[in-house]
């Protein structure tokens, strides 16, 4: 191809959201070399940029600010640390030697790097992928699109909305709708209870005047041109009713934006199809790391940011060890046992232990299949139970559940695969202990 610029750098971070920017801020001061962040949006910051409400930065910055303010702080921290952030540039694929193919208004580039960090995030599963039947009228959104419309383009969504899902992000959508002047909001969830802590959902409902209907799915969308109604179905009785609305927001049900990971032929988690990582956040390809909601779709922004901070050590070790070029020898560091999800978990990450390296943020992230009010984590290896431990917070299928990494302290790092599961606490046994 003519006119393609060949460039090389030390660390290439793909995705300038909380994870990527935090990785850049952590790496740049500690590295005698260049850190480049490639961001396809016109500004860095990722999804928080569109979330114009408070609640960001608790775990990483020990603060409580709005999404856009948080995005700006992460971006300036990365810049001050000496990283380069290239916005409006998109990685569209890889060369055979795993150099990134980049398109921007400046032209085409091939950027090779000694280490690559994938931080491409997650997106909400849209209506089509949820196989919701009906017409294809305007007024059907995901939270991402809704917040983009309202906060960045200052458009008004509609008068009466149905919010599908009752996760944290669903409340964010409800908040956006109320702020934009939408009068009625009905929230539906397929699960038994709203998928965030009860205190928040009760408070949220009162403050936002949102009606909530659980064990309910959207069966069909009605309306040509513009949404006129949705047909709701009770999961237990199959009873249907039609709810008039002009806006439907499909929220949560996050899937990793893993196209680049897949194109790089990295090993993937069988459930999320996102890249598999070990506790050092290294993927199956040497020198390629994956962090943030790309590997745990989708936890809060601050947790993704903590991943970014944590990855710096492993990346530096890779570079110092003369780290082979990405994409050459696979699996340069020997990994420990696989970490597998038990029957009650859809997935767990990291998917393997790297001996001597704790998981980022001192936690394993997983997605429970059902509500468990008083969960017990069970860690087993080679058929025997190593640990059973009560965890103080409830598990819900609507959000990422965090299991302390210390739950693995009894396992044999040289042993076979480890299975981690959550169960309902057996009350009698729990009491006798």
């Amino acid at each position, binding site marked *: 191809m003519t006119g393609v610029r060949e460039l090389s750098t030390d660390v290439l971070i793909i995705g300038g959201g909380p994870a990527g920017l935090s990785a850049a801020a952590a790496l740049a001061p500690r590295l005698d070399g260049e850190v480049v962040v490639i961001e396809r949006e016109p500004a860095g910051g990722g999804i928080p940029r569109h979330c114009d409400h408070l609640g960001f930065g608790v775990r990483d910055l020990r603060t409580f600010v709005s999404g856009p303010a948080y995005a700006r702080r992460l971006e300036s921290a990365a810049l001050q640390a000496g990283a380069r952030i290239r916005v409006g540039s*998109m990685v569209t694929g890889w060369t055979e030697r795993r150099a990134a193919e980049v398109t921007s208004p400046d032209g085409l580039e091939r950027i090779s790097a000694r280490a690559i960090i994938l931080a491409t995030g997650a997106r909400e599963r849209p209506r089509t992928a949820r*196989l919701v039947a009906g017409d294809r009228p305007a007024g059907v959104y995901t939270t991402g699109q809704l917040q983009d*419309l309202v906060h960045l383009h200052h458009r008004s969504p509609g008068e009466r909305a149905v919010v599908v899902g009752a996760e944290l992000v669903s409340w964010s959508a409800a908040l956006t709708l109320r702020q934009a002047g939408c009068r009625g909001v009905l929230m539906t969830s397929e699960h038994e209870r709203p998928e965030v802590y009860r205190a928040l959902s009760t408070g949220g409902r009162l403050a936002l005047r949102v009606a909530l209907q659980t064990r309910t799915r959207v069966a069909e969308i009605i309306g040509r041109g513009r949404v006129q109604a949705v047909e709701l179905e009770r999961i237990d009785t199959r009873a249907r009713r039609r709810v008039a609305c002009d806006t439907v927001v499909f929220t949560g049900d996050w899937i990793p934006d893993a196209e680049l990971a897949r194109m790089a032929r990295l090993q993937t988690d069988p459930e999320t199809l996102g890249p598999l990582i070990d506790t050092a956040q290294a993927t199956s390809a040497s020198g390629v790391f994956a962090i943030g909601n790309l590997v745990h779709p989708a936890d809060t922004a601050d947790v993704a940011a903590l991943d970014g901070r944590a990855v710096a050590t492993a990346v530096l070790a890779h570079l110092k060890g003369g780290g082979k070029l990405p994409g050459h020898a696979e699996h340069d560091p020997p990994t420990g046992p696989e970490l597998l999800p038990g029957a009650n978990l859809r997935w767990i990450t990291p998917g393997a232990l790297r001996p001597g390296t704790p998981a980022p943020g001192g936690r394993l992230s997983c997605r429970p299949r059902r509500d468990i009010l008083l969960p017990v984590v069970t860690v087993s290896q080679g058929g025997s139970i190593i640990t059973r431990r009560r965890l103080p917070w409830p598990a819900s299928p609507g959000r990422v559940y965090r299991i302390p990494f210390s739950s693995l302290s009894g396992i044999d790092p040289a042993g076979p695969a480890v299975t981690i599961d959550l169960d309902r606490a057996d009350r009698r046994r729990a009491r006798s202990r």
Partner: protein
Amino acid sequence: MSAGAGAGGAGPGAGAPPGRIHDLAVIGAGVVGSAIARELSGYRLDVALLEARGDVGDGTSKANTALLHTGYDTTPGSLESRLVRQGYRLLGDYAGRSGIPVERTGALLVAWSEEELRALPALRQKALDNGSENCEPVDAAEVYRRLPSLGGGALGGLTVPGESIICTWTTSLAYATEARMRGVELLLDHRVEGADVSAASTTLRTSAGAVRARFVVNAAGLNADLIDTLFGQQRFTVTPRRGELIVFDKLARALVGEIILPVPTRMGKGVLIAPTVYGNVMLGPTAQEIADRQATGTSQQGLRQLMAKGAALMPTLLREEVTATYAGLRAKIDSDDFLIETDPVQRYTRVGGIRSTGLTASMAIAEHVRDQLADAGLELAERDDLPDPPRMPNLGESFPRPYQEAERIASDPAYGRIVCFCERVTAGEIRDAYTSVIPPADIGGLRRRTRAMNGRCQGFFCGADVQALHDSRGSLST
């Protein structure tokens, strides 16, 4: 390079001056009507193309399965068989000249039961009778060698090397664009509500005023029988047959090297799996006869049925995300063949019963209609001043797209500004759509012209930006 500014004719939607009598009015700017208008505008004729909707190719044409058929399984000796075979060559050639993406993938017809296996020799004979001489039977091992991801239980197959995939949206748009460039008056939002046939001309009463023409072609697709009644005729009834389709993520494309066909049954060609020119994989269509001519929504039952079928045909396909679901209505009539007839007294041609093969056959249908019109007295004098065919913006993955073209970005950085990340659609392409000969009327029209918002995120990332570009008619100041 996109098509340049239109030459000749009033802008889309402009009413005809009072008293003007066109030589020909074509009702319906779907793929067939647009092909007819394009063909007849190659002669010294004043042609109007009327469309009830606000865009060309916006009815049933947009939801076609987008296969370029060889016609191997049509009924030998039928009009459909002849026109599909002719159209296959004509459109294949035109696609190359105008930039309509076509991929010559070939197809494999797979037998899943002893009964289907026994049907293969007859199908091969039928293919031979239809002039498809290179269809070969293959055993189960060869089926799995060609399609390693295919579900278990295939017993054998028949190759159909000529079957191809094409972009149905670009096809309609290319015909209509060339028709406009040749001076055809495109009358959008003109729903025909009445017809008054007099000795010298016919007055079509439309939702946007009267249009007069000496000759009229009815290519109204799903509503062709209703138009027929306006002419006091009732030669056929359209029974819409809904076909629902599921489009899978591009990451599934590697699973499907060619079109995977079932053994056809009485109800149609059955559920197939095909790559798309956009790099996705399509599963469908269902076949359900319905009463409502506007029921283009998907159904819970239809989608479930498709997913169950897909699970059997190719279990690994279902691990990938669904990108889109949609439904199209085939304009099925009470006859097994295309129905194309001209009444010389009324100077009226009906084009009915054009089913999914109509996309492939479109240019041959247009020539056939041309010949019938000539027989009915329309004078055909060839023009020597025809513009070159338009060069349509490429929507296909097997040809370079603007975001991959360094020189193009260097000359205009808007082609390096990717707006729709999933489909890699640039601000330059969106702008071009609005300055093209037939600009989009709505976001749906923009999607069909650029692929913007057609990708896996369905607008999560770019929806608001695309909406803003639509509102500014592609202006890049935002």
